[in-house]
């Protein structure tokens, strides 16, 4: 049991460390790779608390799709040669104040509210999920699929846009 705790804390440390690199690094390529570390760490966390399907989906969509898009956009837009000024930051003190206020509020709520918690023993979630998605939650599934089609067509249309003349 203490080993579980240690694994969780190591994972949290990795996630928070990568998050801090995303927040404070002056090089946007480094930020992008740290975001890759965050998403991998979060996928590990999903597996750790027994949500296997979401962990696999996280790896496939975030690591395989979104991060590739991010790296592509970074390489495409910022002049990689001058890494000095690719990732400027502004108005840090007020933002830090706001985030600290958020942390104090959230942590005070989390650690005082009496959650009736009991960890479900891990079991494969895919069968239950499939039944729910093709049964009672069919409409959200279809709406999401429609949204993906519209989004991809829209993204292609925006990306193909050329200024006339």
């Amino acid at each position, binding site marked *: 049991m*203490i080993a*579980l*705790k240690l694994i*969780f804390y190591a994972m949290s440390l990795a*996630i*928070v460390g990568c*998050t*801090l690199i*995303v*927040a404070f690094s002056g090089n*946007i390529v480094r*930020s992008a790779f740290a*975001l890759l570390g*965050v*998403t991998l760490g*979060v996928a590990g*966390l*999903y597996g*750790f*608390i027994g*949500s296997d399907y*979401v962990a696999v989906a*996280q790896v496939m*969509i*975030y690591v395989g799709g979104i991060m590739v*898009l*991010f790296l*592509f*956009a970074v390489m*495409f*837009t*910022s002049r990689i040669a001058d890494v000095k000024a690719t*990732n*400027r930051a*502004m108005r840090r003190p*007020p*933002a*830090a104040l*706001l*985030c*600290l206020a*958020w*942390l104090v509020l*959230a942590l005070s709520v*989390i*650690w005082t509210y009496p*959650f009736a*918690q009991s*960890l479900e023993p891990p079991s494969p*979630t895919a069968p239950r*999920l499939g039944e*729910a998605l093709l049964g009672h939650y069919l409409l*959200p599934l279809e709406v*999401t699929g429609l949204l*993906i089609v519209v*989004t991809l067509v*829209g*993204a292609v249309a*925006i*990306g193909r846009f050329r200024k006339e003349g």
Partner: protein
Amino acid sequence: MAVTLQEILTLSAVLFGAGLFVVLTRANAIAVLMGVELILNAVNINFVAFERYVHHGVLGTLAALITIVLAACEVAVALAIVIGVFRSTGTIEIDEPGELKG
């Protein structure tokens, strides 16, 4: 002593705060989008954790999956817009003087 719900929620709160910080402070539009991704990840952790610890159904997983898909859609469109803006103005700094000013 197993990992408690409070510890997972604390991790997600830290992730959300850092994402908020990134969104508020970064000048580069792509970096702002990275902050949005951090926030979405924090929310997803909460969905899954509450399902595993409190609700015991499939609703948290469903919400997390739909959020992941929405994040992918959002990034695809936003990065297409960012690249379009870069092509037409040569910069993606969000505090540069805008062209849309009337």
